[in-house]
C-alpha cells in the first residue's frame, strides 16, 4: 500500500523488538466479542488514476449547471480567486501542519494568523479579531453566546428575521438548551430593514444583544448605526452578521457604525464555493471583550534574544485549559481558509477590495435594471443593496423553473425560505457575471414571464 510503508520484513523486525509473534497479539487484549472478524464491506482500494476517474465522473455529473448563468448568492458567492491563493494554500508546510502548539517551529502559521487577525479587525472595523471560526453561521451563534457571557444576567437575544435563515437556525440550535437565553425574532419594515417599532418594543433590560444581517438576506443594507444606538441605550450589545464579506470593501464597517461584535462569512475572500464548505467564520469585537471571545488568538511577543515572534495567547479562555467553563468548545478551526483569505486580501489590498466591491455594485445594479425591463418585475424592497436583492416576479416559481430549463438559475425562490414572501426571487450578480450573461438573463426573463 503506497501510503503505508511497512514491508513484511519491517513488521517482523518490529514484532521481534516487541517480543510478540503477530500484530494480532497487540490487540488480543480487546474483549473477544468486540473484535471484528468480518472484513469491512468497502470496495477494494484503488490506484490514483482510478480515484481520479471516479471522482471526475462524479464531478461532471452536475448536469446542466453552468456557473456563468447561475445567479445564486444567498449565503455563498462566486468570486474571482487569484491562483496565487490556491498556490499558497497548497504549500505543504501550511497545509500539513496543525495548530501551532510549538511556536518556535510554527512561525509561518502564526504570523499568517496574526496578519489575518489584523486584516479582519480592520475589515470589520473592530479592535480584535480571532484566528477564525467554522463559518459565518456558527460564528453568529458563538457571538450570541458571547453576548450572554458579557451580560450574563440578561436572558434574551433579538434576532432580525431578515438574517439569513440558516444563520438563524444555527443560532437557534446553539441556544436550545443553553441555560437562560432565548431568542426573539424581529420583522422587517417596507424597506426590508429591521422594523424600528419591533426593535423598540422588544429592546429592554432583558436583552443582551441584537443580531442583524449586514447586508441582510434580502441584500438590504441595515441601519446598524441606528440599531446600535437603540441597543446601547438599552444596555444591550449590537451584533452584526455579514454573509458576503466583499460588501465590506465598500460599506461602512460594522465597527464604525457601532457594532460591538461583528461576524462574517469569509468564503467570498478567496475560498471556492465547494458546495458550501469549508467556509470561514470571521469574528471580531471590541478589545474590552477579548477575554469573552471564542476561538484561538495569536499575539506578538519576543523570544529570548528579543526578536519578535508570535504565539497562541489568552488560551485560558479555551477548552483545553478551561474545559466546561471555556468560552467555546471550538478546537480545530478553519486555519487554512484563514490563510486563503489573508493571501486574497493582500493581493487585492486597499485598492482592490474596494474596486472589487464596486464592480459587484455595478454589475448587480445593471442586472437589476435589465430584469426590471420585464413588465411586472420590480424590486421587492426599495432600498440600496450590494450585490443581491429581492425582486417580485409574477408567478415566480414557474418563471424560475422555465428559466432553469433555459439554463439560467434565477437565484432562489424566496418563498422556500419565507412563506410570506410570495412571488419573490433572490438573485445575485458579482464581478464574474459578464455583460453578456446579464443581458441574456434579462432577455430570458422577458420570455419566461408570460
Amino acid at each position, binding site marked *: 500500500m503506497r501510503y503505508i510503508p511497512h514491508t513484511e520484513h519491517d513488521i517482523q523486525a518490529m514484532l521481534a523488538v516487541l517480543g510478540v509473534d503477530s500484530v494480532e497479539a497487540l490487540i488480543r*487484549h480487546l474483549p473477544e466479542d468486540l473484535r471484528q472478524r468480518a472484513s469491512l464491506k468497502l470496495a477494494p482500494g484503488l490506484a490514483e488514476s482510478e480515484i481520479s476517474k471516479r471522482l471526475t465522473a462524479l464531478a461532471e455529473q452536475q448536469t446542466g*449547471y453552468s456557473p456563468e448563468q447561475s445567479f445564486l448568492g444567498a449565503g455563498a458567492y462566486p468570486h474571482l480567486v487569484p491562483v496565487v491563493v490556491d498556490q499558497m494554500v497548497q504549500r505543504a*508546510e501550511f497545509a500539513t501542519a496543525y495548530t501551532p502548539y510549538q511556536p518556535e517551529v510554527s512561525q509561518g502559521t502564526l504570523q499568517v494568523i496574526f496578519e489575518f487577525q489584523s486584516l479582519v479587525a480592520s475589515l470589520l472595523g473592530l479592535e480584535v479579531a480571532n484566528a477564525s471560526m467554522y463559518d459565518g453561521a456558527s460564528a453568529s451563534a458563538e457571538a450570541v453566546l458571547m453576548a450572554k457571557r458579557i451580560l450574563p444576567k440578561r436572558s434574551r437575544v433579538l434576532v432580525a428575521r431578515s438574517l439569513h435563515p440558516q444563520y438563524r437556525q444555527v443560532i437557534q440550535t446553539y441556544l436550545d438548551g443553553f441555560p437562560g437565553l432565548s431568542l426573539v425574532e424581529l420583522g422587517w419594515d417596507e424597506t426590508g430593514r429591521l422594523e424600528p417599532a419591533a426593535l423598540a418594543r422588544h429592546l429592554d433590560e432583558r436583552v443582551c444583544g441584537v443580531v442583524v444581517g449586514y447586508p441582510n438576506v434580502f441584500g438590504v443594507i441595515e441601519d446598524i448605526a441606528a440599531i446600535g444606538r437603540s441597543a446601547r441605550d438599552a444596555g444591550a450589545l449590537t451584533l452584526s452578521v455579514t454573509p458576503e464579506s466583499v460588501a465590506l470593501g465598500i460599506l461602512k464597517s460594522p465597527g464604525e457604525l457601532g457594532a460591538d461584535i461583528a461576524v462574517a462569512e469569509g468564503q467570498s475572500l478567496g475560498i471556492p464555493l465547494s458546495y458550501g464548505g469549508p467556509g470561514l467564520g470571521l469574528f471580531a469585537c471590541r478589545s474590552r471583550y477579548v477575554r469573552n471571545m471564542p476561538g484561538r488568538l495569536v499575539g506578538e511577543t519576543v523570544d529570548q534574544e528579543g526578536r519578535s515572534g508570535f504565539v497562541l495567547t489568552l488560551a485560558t479562555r479555551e477548552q483545553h485549559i478551561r474545559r466546561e467553563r471555556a468560552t467555546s468548545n471550538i478546537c480545530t478551526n478553519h486555519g487554512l481558509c484563514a490563510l486563503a483569505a489573508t493571501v486574497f486580501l493582500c493581493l487585492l489590498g486597499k485598492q482592490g477590495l474596494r474596486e472589487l466591491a464596486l464592480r459587484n455594485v455595478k454589475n448587480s445594479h445593471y442586472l437589476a435594471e435589465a430584469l426590471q425591463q420585464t413588465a411586472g418585475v420590480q424590486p421587492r424592497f426599495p432600498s440600496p443593496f450590494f450585490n443581491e436583492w429581492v425582486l417580485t416576479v409574477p408567478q415566480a416559481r414557474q418563471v424560475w423553473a422555465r428559466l432553469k430549463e433555459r439554463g439560467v438559475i434565477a437565484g432562489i425562490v424566496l418563498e422556500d425560505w419565507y412563506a410570506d414572501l410570495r412571488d419573490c426571487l433572490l438573485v445575485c450578480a458579482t464581478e464574474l457575471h459578464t455583460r453578456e450573461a446579464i443581458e441574456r438573463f434579462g432577455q430570458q426573463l422577458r420570455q419566461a414571464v408570460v
Partner: protein
Amino acid sequence: MKTPARPPGPGKRTVLNEPLISARGSVGRVGYALPRDDIPERDQARDLPAALCREALDDFPEVSEGEVVRHFTRLSQWNMSAATTLYPLGSCTMKYNPVVNEYMARLPGLAQLHPLTPDDQAQGALMLLAELERCLAEISGMDAISLQPAAGAQGELTGMKLVRAYHQDRGTPRKKVLIPASAHGTNPASAALCGYDVAQVATGADGLLSADAVASCTDAEVAALMVTNPNTLGLFEREILRITDVLHAHGALVYMDGANLNALMGVAKPGHMGADVIQFNLHKTFSTPHGGGGPGAGPVGVKKILEPYLPIPRIVRQNDTWSWSDAAPKSIGRVRSFYGNFGILVRAYAYILAMGGDGLTHATRMAILNANYLRKRLESVYTLATQEPCMHECVFSDRSFHQTGVKTLDIAKRLLDYGFYAPTIYFPLVVSGALMIEPTETETKETLDEFADALLAIAQEITDQPDLLKQAPFTTPVSRLDETRAARRPVLRWSRSQDS
C-alpha cells in the same frame, strides 16, 4: 544519529527574516487586476449612496503579486509540518495526507459548485456524500450519519444536542453528563454548551475507566456518558461493554468521542460497543490535511434511536435521484450553513477509495504496531503513564526526571533541535507532565528509530546537561518565546507604528 550541537553549526536556512506584510508595499501598488469592465457607465452614487460607503481601508497592504508570493512562501518555510518531518502530536493523527486528494477536491465540478444548485443538477455531489455516509456507517457500525459538523468539537456539540433532543422527546430532560478525567477538553466544553452539568468520572490508576466507577456516578439525572475509546492514554477501554450497559440500564445514552478511530478501523466498531452517537474526525482518521488548524470535518454517526434528531437537511434517495430534505420534524436543526465541509468530505472519500476496506484495516493495525514499537523502545528510559497495552498512541509521564528540574516542555523543545515536531504535552491531564506520542501508520520503522534515538539521546542529556534542555531549542527561527508577556500585554494585530 548526530547530536545537534549547541550553539549549532551553520544553520540549515536559506531564508532570513520576513517582516509583516504591512511593512511591505508602497502606496498605490497593486497585486491584482479585475477583468475588463464592459458594462455601460453608471452613476455609482445612485446605485449606492455615499453615506453608506466606508473610507479607504488604510491599513490594508498595497503589494505586488510577486511580493505576496514571496512573503507567504518564505513564511511557509518556518513551519515544521507532516510533509517535512515526523509530527507525532498525540490525539491528532498526523498521518501522510495523499496529494491526489488535493487534486480531487479542486475538480472544477466540485470546487465551483454552488450549494444552492438545484438538486437535480448536483447529483454527482449528492451521490458522493451519500456514498461517504455509507462508508462511515460501515466502518463505525453506526446506523445513520450526518456529515454536517465542521470539526470534531462541532460533532460533539451536535451529538450532545441529539442526546438532549432524545431525552426531551421522551419528556425526561436530564441534567448531567459524565466525563472521564482523561477526556479531551472539547468534551466538557461541548456538554456545557448544551446546558449540561459536567460530572467527572475518575480514571483508574491503570488509565482505564471502570464500570464500577461509572456505575457509582450514574443516576436518573445522567443524560449520557462521553467516553473516548481508545481513550486519550491510547488504551482500549476494556470494560466498555459493561460501561455502556450501565448507562443504558439507567436510560442514559453513550456518546463516544471518535477522534481515536484510527485505532479501530476493521478491528472493532463503536457501534458494537454500545455507543449511541459518535463523531468522526475526518482530518485525523481519514487523512485530510490539518491546515495549520483546520478546516476539518466532524460528521456524527448515530444509532437508529437518534436518527430522527439528526441535523437537517438530510440526503434522501427517491428512485435514482438524490436530494436534500428538511422533512425531519424532530431534528435538532442546523449546526452550520449548508451541508458540511464538502471540500474535506471529498478528500476523505478519496482516501477511503484509495484504501479500501482492507487498506483501512491495515492502516489501523500498522498504527497500533508503530505506537507499540515506540513504546517499547522508550519504556526503559521514559516512565510509561500506565503499563496497560496501548493501541495507536502511547503516553509517558515526567516522573522519572522530576528531580533534574527538567520539564516535559524542555524535552519537547529539545526535540525540535533534533528535527522532529514535539508530541502533545501536558495532555491528558491525568498524567503528570504527559508526553503523548502518536506516530500513525504512515511513518517508517526507520523514522521511528530515529525519533526513539533522539528521545533516548535527550534522556542522556537530561542527566548530563540539564541546563542545555532548559534553553532549547537552538536551531529554530526563533528561540523560546515569552508567552507571559504575550498574555499580559496582548498585541493581537499590527499597528501602523509597527510597520515603519
